[in-house]
Each structure stands twice: as C-alpha cells, then as structure tokens.
C-alpha cells in the first residue's frame, strides 16, 4: 500500500514539474519531445511487460500501437463520437483484437512466438495498405483529427496536448507498475524463469500469458492514440514492422530488467534521433554505432547498468 502511495506521489510530482516547465522555459521542442516520449515510452514499457517480465519476445507489438492510431483516428473522423468515447472504444477494439491474436500466438514459444507476432503485424499492415477506401492506403489517413476538445480543453493546442500526454504517460506507467507488483506480476516472472514449474504450482500458464498479452496491447494502443493526436492522423509507417523495432531498441538501450528502463531507452532513442538528424543524413550509421556500443560496451541497458553499479538487483531481474 505504501508503495502505491509513494508511486502515485512521484507521478503527481512529475506531472506538476512538467506542467511548470513551459512557464520557465518556453521551448516548444521540449513539449514535442515529451508528447512523442509519452507515446513511445508507453509503447516500449508495454512491450517490456512481455519481453522483460514474461519472457515473451514479441516482434510484432507495433500491431497494437498502429491499431491504436488507426482506430482512434478513424473513429474521430468517420463517426461523430467525442474524444473520450473514441479513446475507450479504441481500447475495446484493441482488447478484442489482442484476444484473437494472443489466442493464436501464446501457444508458441521463443522464436516461433516472435515470428508469428511479426506475421500478424505484417498482415494488419497489408490490410491497411490495401483497404484504400477506409484507410487511405499508403498515403495514410488524411484530413486531420476533428473535435479535439475534451471538457473545454482543446488538445489541438500544443500545451494542452503536452499536459494530456504527460498525464496519460504517468497514469499508464503507474498502472503497469501496479500490474507487475501484484501477485499476477509474480506469476509473470515465474513463467519467465520456469514455465513448467509455474504450471506445477497451479498457475494456469496460458491464461496468465493471454492476460498479459492483452494488457500490454491495450497500453501500446494508448501510446498509439497519443501519436495519432501528435501527427493529427494515422499513417502506415506507424503500423509497419520498423516501429516494433524502435520499441525493442528502446528496451535494449534503457534496460530490460528495470521498470523505467524502456522509458529511459525511449528518451535516449528520441534524443539521439533529434540530435543526429540535425547534424547528418547518416542517421542509421550513427544509431547503429551507438547501439553497438550499448550491446558490446555496457552489455545491458543503461538503467540496468546503473542499478547494478549501485549494488542493487534490477526489479524485473533477468536471472
């Protein structure tokens, strides 16, 4: 209980600080950074529920991120419903899809699981590219997102969207943090470390796996909604397989064993992107070298490295 109160207090503090920053430093680039960070950090952390906590390496998690952007943008454009309703409806669509996809995927293990999730994502990407009448195909969903006003607050305004993104990120992280700290979270780690033993101890493995698969899909789709509001639309690049790669990079760079690892990784990745893109057109080369340095130099994500140096054991602990 104390832990929850402490986490919530930290979360409120973070939002308060972020809300104050624009009054001290009026940098719109910083606000953009936080909005994108919110989207990608939710996505990467949700993937880490599978990769770090359950030992399920999904290569196709971008499916749910992209599904979030498309469902939300389409609901806002084609129907007259308000933003909060579209938000909830998007989560429901994601839940139903994740149950169907998860039911097929979680039967498989290791590389087979990874590749079937990837195949599912590519399938959805193909559907979006081909269904030109609904999605605009490869040109993306054009025309912007209308009615971005919630309770009198216009999310079309950058500062408002910035606060909204920060609040969504903090709430999302708190909820995921709570999930991994419950007995359900313990079951996840047990399955990761020894699936057979977990089954013998009475854990219904497939049910736990399917539940965490659906939960992580829902959080990824929240990240997608934030991205959809940021770009004011939905584009096939947001559901194509490299977006899953971005989340995996974020986890690798931040640390698979620490709860905030993927968030830190996302910040590193986005900062690198922004700084390197300003300097050179050889972005891929620069990023590749830095990832190699992480893999060969630190041999783990930054946050895992720091935690271990300080003598602690990462909470998610890959043993």
């Amino acid at each position, binding site marked *: 209980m104390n832990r929850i109160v402490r986490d919530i207090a930290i979360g409120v503090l973070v939002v308060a600080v972020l809300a104050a920053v624009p009054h001290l430093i009026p940098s719109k680039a910083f606000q*953009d950074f936080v909005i994108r960070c919110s989207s990608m950090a939710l996505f990467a952390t949700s993937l880490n529920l599978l990769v770090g906590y359950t030992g399920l390496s999904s290569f196709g998690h971008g499916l749910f991120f992209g599904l979030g952007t498309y469902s939300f943008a389409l609901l806002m454009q084609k129907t007259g419903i308000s933003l909060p309703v579209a938000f909830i409806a998007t989560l429901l669509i994601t839940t139903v899809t994740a149950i169907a996809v998860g039911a097929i995927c979680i039967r498989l293990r290791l590389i087979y699981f990874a590749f079937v999730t990837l195949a599912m994502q590519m399938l959805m990407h193909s559907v979006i590219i081909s269904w*030109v009448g609904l999605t605009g195909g490869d040109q993306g969903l054009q*025309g912007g997102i209308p009615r971005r006003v919630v309770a009198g607050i216009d999310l079309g305004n950058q500062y408002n969207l910035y606060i909204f993104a920060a609040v969504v990120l903090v709430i999302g992280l708190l909820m995921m943090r709570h999930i991994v700290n419950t007995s359900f979270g313990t079951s996840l780690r047990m399955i990761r470390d020894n699936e057979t033993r977990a089954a013998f101890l009475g854990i219904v493995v497939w049910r736990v796996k399917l539940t965490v698969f659906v939960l992580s899909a829902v959080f990824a789709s929240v990240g997608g909604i934030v991205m959809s509001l*940021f770009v004011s639309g939905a584009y096939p690049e947001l559901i194509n397989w490299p977006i899953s790669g971005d989340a995996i990079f974020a986890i690798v760079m931040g640390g698979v064993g620490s709860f905030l690892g993927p968030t830190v990784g996302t910040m590193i990745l986005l900062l690198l992107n922004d700084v390197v893109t*300003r300097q050179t*057109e050889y972005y891929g080369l620069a990023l590749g070298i830095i990832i190699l340095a992480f893999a060969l130099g630190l041999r783990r994500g930054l946050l895992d490295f720091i935690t271990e140096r300080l003598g602690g054991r990462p909470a998610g602990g890959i043993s």
Partner: protein
Amino acid sequence: MHDNKAARLGRRTVLAASAAALAMPAVARAQANPLKIGIQSIFSGPIALLGTSSRGAIQPEIDRINAAGGLLGRQIQPIYRDSKGQPQEAARVARELVNTDGCEILLDAEASSGAYAVQEVVRDLGVLCVHSNSETSSLTADPKLRVATAFRSARQGVHDAIVGGAHSAKVATAKKLSKWATCSPDYAFGRDTTAQFLEFLKHFKPDIEVLSQGWPKLGAPDFTEVITKILQAKPQALYSALYAGDLSAFVNQGNVYALFSAMQVFVPAMGDLPVLTAVKNLPAGIQSANRYLPTFPATAENAAWGAAYRKNNNNDYPTNWSWENSTAIRFIEAAVKKAGSTDGKKAAAALEGLTIDSPFSTTGKVTMRAEDHTLIDYAIGWGTTVPKEPFVIDMEPGDWGQIAELEKEWKKSNGYI
C-alpha cells in the same frame, strides 16, 4: 625575461582575440538577421534522390537571391532536414524547424504521406508553406484538407491523367487501338493513377476494352510474370504508371521479351532523365509524358536551366522534383517581395493567384491558382521516345483550357466543389 615577454604578448593576443570573438557574432547578427527557410525532404534511404535532386535545384536559386542582396534585404539561410520518409518525423521536423530553428517559411519537399502530415502542422502554426513534391490531387483539391497558408508548386495527378487521356485517345484513334492492358505498382498511387487515366481515356475514346491489369509489387526486382501475362493477353496498347527504378527495370526486362514492339506502350513517367539514362536500350516509339526535359519547352531559358543544374550538381541530371523546387523558391521570393513580409497570412495573400516568369512553361509563365492554391500552366505534354538524346521528341503540349474544364468536372464528381 625573453620568455616572460613572449608570455605577455601571448596573453594580449589571447585577450584581443577573445574580445574579437565575442564581438563577432553581435556584429554578424546586426548585419544579417537571416531569413531562415526550413526545407524538409527524404535525404537518406532508397528514395534519397527525392531530397538530393530537390536540394540541387533549391540551393542555386537561394545563392542567386543572396548574391543579389537577399530577400527584403535579408540573406536567406536554408535549413535542410531529413524526415527519413516517416510522417511522424515529417510532422516533428516541421514543428522543430519553425518553433526551435526560427524558420519563417517552410518548403516541404516531402513525398505525399509526409506532405499530408506537414499540412496538418501548418494548419496549427500558420506559417507560409509550399509543398513542392506531392502530386496527390486531394492535398489541394479537397476543401477539407486545404490550409489557408499552404500551397503546391508541383504537378498534379489529375492534370497528368487529363492530358494523358486526351493524348492517348488521339494516338489510339489514329492507330485504331481499342484493346488495352495496364501494369502499375500495387499501392494507392499506382491504382488511383491507373483508374484516373482509364477514366479520361474512355472520356475521349469510349470504345476501350481493358483485357488485363497487372499489379507488380513496389520495388519488385523481377517483372517476368507481369510481362508474360501482358503478352498472353495480346493487347494493342499498354499503359503503365511505373516510375523511377522500377520503370527502368521493367523496360530493361520488357526489351528481352520484345514487349515494346508487340504493342503501343504509354508510360507517363518515362520522360525523366534519370530513368531515360538508366535504361540500357531505350526502345523507340514509347509514348511518354514529360517529367522534366531540358528540350520541353524548347526554349533557351529551359535549356540553360538544365545545363546550369548539371554544372551545379556534379553533372547529375535534374529530375521532375528539381523544377518543382526551383519553382517553389521563385514563388516564395515573389510572394514575400510583393507582401513585403514573411508573415504567413500576408505572404499567402500575396501568393494567391500570383503569376511569375518561368522556364518550365510553354507560355513562359506559371500561376499559383487562387481558388485551390495549386500550380497551373506548367509545361505538360506527351512525346515519343528515341534511343539517343534528346530521348523524347515530337512533344505535344497539353491544352490548359481543356485541363481546367475537365478538372472542374472531376472535382464536382468527387464532391470537392
């Protein structure tokens, strides 16, 4: 003693140098206050040519303006940035260029999906923006997508379809070609362009029968299957919306099967120099539109512009994107001069309906149409390929009166007006 003196001198030199260094930026700022233009495109990956051949035309134009004293007395400072072809990066980069780098004007040289993302950012920011590479008609034709301060200095899909339909119908009537096949890339652009072409072809020549439609995947290295399918259908004519690397690969492989002597082929994107020069044995007699040709319009200004581009760019050929971006800068220059300001609203008001001199027009002038913020009167026409330079001959210019009339009908049928 000697050492001491040297050291003192050293200190003085250092002090003087630091003072100069501190004063320099202030002096430079007072003199310059550059006018920053944000230019975003794809500069890396497989379609980096989009960005590099755009920049290759933009930079000489900016150098010309700066050498003549700048714009409103301020030197133009271009800031080029790579979006890597990702719409979310395009949106981010557009915001960064305006909000962080202090760009007063955006030149959006993105491909279509990037351009749509930038359009939404411009809607929020209200700066003057010229889209220079997106040819997708709805960007400016659809009133729901239109933005008050955004314009397009590029050719437009529907213009190409009308001129292509009119010209192809004329050739088809003369040569009695009624059985057709198509072969276009399998994504929205390929399918839309092909459907639009057929629509206008049938408008001019209703007795058209389409026997076969092939849809090769984008970037497919092997066209054998598609080519044999076309040959088996035995059409009299073939239309293809393939372009760039895919098109040169298609022509090279089609040559092996003698595809181009078996039927009359119509390829709008053939008339672009990088494609024409990448084909090993360019077949004679392909009907092609111009993308950019230094020989069309056949004026001294156009030829000189083409030669200057090659001189400025390591002898690389200019592309369709090059003239479109050159035109973008010329429009920005004229609009800002006329408005006396870079303010989004004022410059946009000046740019609406503006006509400027241009080497890329058969009349010597191009116009930014006021009603839908898009370019008209640019050189658009069809000719016949020959294996050697100038590669495309007998260019027949499209009729802008006819284009405007049919474009209006097309807009009505799409509910745009």
